[in-house]
C-alpha cells in the first residue's frame, strides 16, 4: 500500500502540475557532462587549433605550422609514434594472451577475479607515482639495482635506459597490459564454445578454427583495442615528464618545453601547432577505433 502510494507520488511528481505542454527534460541529466566536456575538452581544442594559425605578432598565417618540419620536431613525432606503436603492440599481445587465459578458465574462479580487479586498478596507475615506483626500484640508485650491483650484476651495462625511450616502453606496459585485459576480455567472452564444436564436427582442426572462425571474429576487437592503447600511450605526459628530464624526445614533452622554457625558446604558438599535429593523429586513430568497434559489436550481442 505505502509502496504503491509512494510510486504513484513519484509518477505524479514527474507530471506537469497544470496539464500544460510537457517539457522534454530528459537532457537535463546530461548537462553537467556536456558542460564538463565543453569546458575541458572542446574549448581547449578550439583554442589550440585556432592558436596554431596565429604567429608571435598576432597575425593569422601558417608560420607556426611551418615550424613542424624542423628536424628535431619531426624526430619527436617519429619517436612518439614509434614509442606508442611499440608499447601498444607489446601491450596488446601480452594483454590478449593474459585475457585468453582468464577467458578459458573458470568464470567464477579466483584467477579471473584477481586478475580483472588488479587490471582495473593498474590500468589507472600512471603518472608521477608510477615513474617514482620504477625509479625507486630500478633507477640509478634504486634498491633492486643496488642490490644486484652488490652481487656483481649490472642491469645497465651501457646507459641507464630507464630514463630514456626504452624505459618509457617498459613503464607504459605497466598500465597498457591491464588496459588490454579490460577491453579485450568482453570480446573473448563473446566467443561461444559451440562455434568450436561446430568447427570440429565439420572436420576442422585447431588451425581451421583460429584461421576461419575465432581469428576473423576477434581481429576487429584486437585491432580496435590496439588503437586505444596507441592513443593512451601517445597522449601520456606526466609519466614521461617524471621519468625523462633531458632532450624532450617525444611530442608531449616538446610541447611542455615550448611553454616553460626560460632560455628564450618559449613559444606558445609553436606549442599549439605541435598540439594540433597530435590532435590530427589521435583523431585518425580514434575514428579507426570507432569503425572497428562497430564491427566488433555485431558479434558480441
Amino acid at each position: 500500500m505505502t509502496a504503491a502510494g509512494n510510486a504513484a507520488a513519484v509518477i505524479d511528481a514527474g507530471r506537469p502540475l497544470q496539464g500544460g505542454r510537457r517539457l522534454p527534460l530528459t537532457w537535463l541529466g546530461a548537462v553537467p557532462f556536456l558542460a564538463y566536456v565543453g569546458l575541458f575538452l572542446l574549448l581547449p581544442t578550439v583554442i589550440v587549433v585556432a592558436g596554431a594559425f596565429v604567429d608571435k605578432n598576432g597575425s593569422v598565417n601558417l608560420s607556426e605550422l611551418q615550424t613542424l618540419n624542423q628536424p628535431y620536431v619531426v624526430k619527436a613525432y617519429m619517436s612518439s609514434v614509434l614509442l606508442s606503436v611499440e608499447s601498444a603492440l607489446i601491450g596488446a599481445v601480452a594483454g590478449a594472451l593474459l585475457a585468453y587465459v582468464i577467458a578459458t578458465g573458470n568464470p567464477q574462479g579466483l584467477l579471473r577475479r584477481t586478475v580483472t580487479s588488479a587490471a582495473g586498478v593498474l590500468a589507472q596507475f600512471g603518472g608521477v607515482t608510477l615513474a617514482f615506483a620504477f625509479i625507486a626500484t630500478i633507477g640509478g640508485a634504486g634498491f633492486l639495482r643496488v642490490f644486484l650491483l652488490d652481487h656483481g650484476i649490472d642491469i645497465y651495462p651501457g646507459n641507464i635506459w630507464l630514463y630514456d625511450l626504452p624505459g618509457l616502453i617498459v613503464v607504459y606496459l605497466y598500465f597498457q597490459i591491464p588496459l588490454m585485459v579490460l577491453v579485450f576480455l568482453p570480446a573473448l567472452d563473446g566467443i561461444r564454445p559451440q562455434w568450436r564444436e561446430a568447427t570440429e564436427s565439420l572436420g576442422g582442426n585447431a588451425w581451421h578454427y583460429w584461421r576461419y572462425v575465432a581469428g576473423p571474429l576477434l581481429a576487429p576487437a584486437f585491432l580496435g583495442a590496439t588503437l586505444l592503447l596507441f592513443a593512451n600511450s601517445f597522449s601520456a605526459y606526466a609519466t614521461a615528464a617524471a621519468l625523462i628530464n633531458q632532450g624532450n624526445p617525444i611530442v608531449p614533452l616538446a610541447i611542455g618545453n615550448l611553454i616553460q622554457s626560460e632560455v628564450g625558446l618559449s613559444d606558445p604558438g609553436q606549442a599549439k601547432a605541435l598540439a594540433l599535429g597530435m590532435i590530427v593523429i589521435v583523431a585518425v586513430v580514434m575514428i579507426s577505433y570507432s569503425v572497428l568497434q562497430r564491427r566488433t559489436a555485431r558479434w558480441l550481442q
Partner: protein
Amino acid sequence: MNWHRLHRLGLAVAAVFIVAACGSSSSAGSTDWSTQSSASAGGGMDALVAAAKAEGQLNIIAVPRDWANYGAIIDGFTAKYGIKINSANPNGSSQDEVDAVNQLGKTSRAPDVLDIGMKVALANTALFTPYQVGVWKDIPAAQKESSGLWYQDYGGYMSIGYDSSKVPAVTSMQDLLGSAFKGKVALNGDPTKANAALNGVMMASLANGGSLDNIGPGVDFFHQLKVKGNFVPVQATTATVKSGQTPVVFDWDYLSQSHGTDVPTWKIFVPSNATLGGYYAQAINKNAPHPAAARLWEEYLYSDAGQNFWLKGGARPVRMAAMQSAGTLDAAAAAALPAITGTPVFLSPDQATAAGTYLAAHWAAAIS
C-alpha cells in the same frame, strides 16, 4: 533583539573604523606606494614599513627555500615585520614567473616580486615598475637598469659539484669522461628549458675550446659523456643528490653548496679555463597586489642582513664589493666560497639566445 542591534552597531563601528583606517593611511601618508620609485619618495622607510604592515602579506614565486638560503630570508622578513609570505610554485622557472604575472593580472594572488633570470627579465621589462632601493649606489652600474626596472641581486659561478666519497676528485673537465664516472654526471635540468643547465653546457664548451658565441663543443662534450655511459639524464635536485642518483652535478656554485647539508663529502670545483658567472635580478610587478610590502621586501633583500643571508647560502650578493670595503660583509661566509682562479666571463642576452637556438636543434640528438 537587543543582541541584533548590538551586532549591527558593532558592524557599523567596525565599518567606520575600517573606513577611518583607510582614510588615515591615505591622508597621513598620502602615498600610493604602487607608483613610488624609492622609499624616500614615498615618505621614508618608516612610512613604507607602516604601509607594508597594513598590507600584511607578500606574494613571492619560484623561490625554493633551499635556493641561495631563501628559507632564512623568508623567515627573517616575517619575523622582523610580521608580514605573511605566500610562496607560490617554488620550483618554477623564470618563465613560469612571467606567465603568472600575465595570467593573474591585478588579482590578489599575483606575484608582488620576482627573482628572475636576466634573459627573461630583459624580455619582459614592460611588466615591471621601477624602484630604487636605499643602497642603490652600491649596485654596480652594469648590474642594474638605470631607472630601477630590474637590478641584479646575487649570482655565482658555474661549477661541478661532486660527492667525494663516490667519485675521485675532479680537477678538470676531461676527468668526467673517465670510467669512474659511469652513470654519475647530471645537469640541473634540460638546457633547452633551464638557464642553469644551459650555462652548464656553456661551461663545458668553454673548457673544450668553445666560446660564449659557440656552445657547440659543450654539446659535443655531453654527447661524449652519453656515449661513454657517464651522463645521467636526471634533473639534479636536493633529493637526487641525497639519494645518490646524481653524484656529479653541473650547477651554480651557490646551489651546489647547499648539497653539503645532506652530503658532508660534497665538494665544488670551478674550472680555471671556464669561469662562467651568472646573476639573477629582482623586479617588482607593476600590478603588485601588495605594493608597499613588495618595496619593503626589496629593501630587506639589499640590506646588509639580506645580502649576508645570500652569502651564507654560498651566493655572491651584488653589494659584496661595497660591503667588503665598508666592513659589513660576513667574512666567514665569504671565506667559505669556492676558490675562483680564472677570469670570470658572463653570457650576454644575445649570446644566451644564440646558445638556446643551437641547443633547440642539437641537444636532443646529442644525448639520445
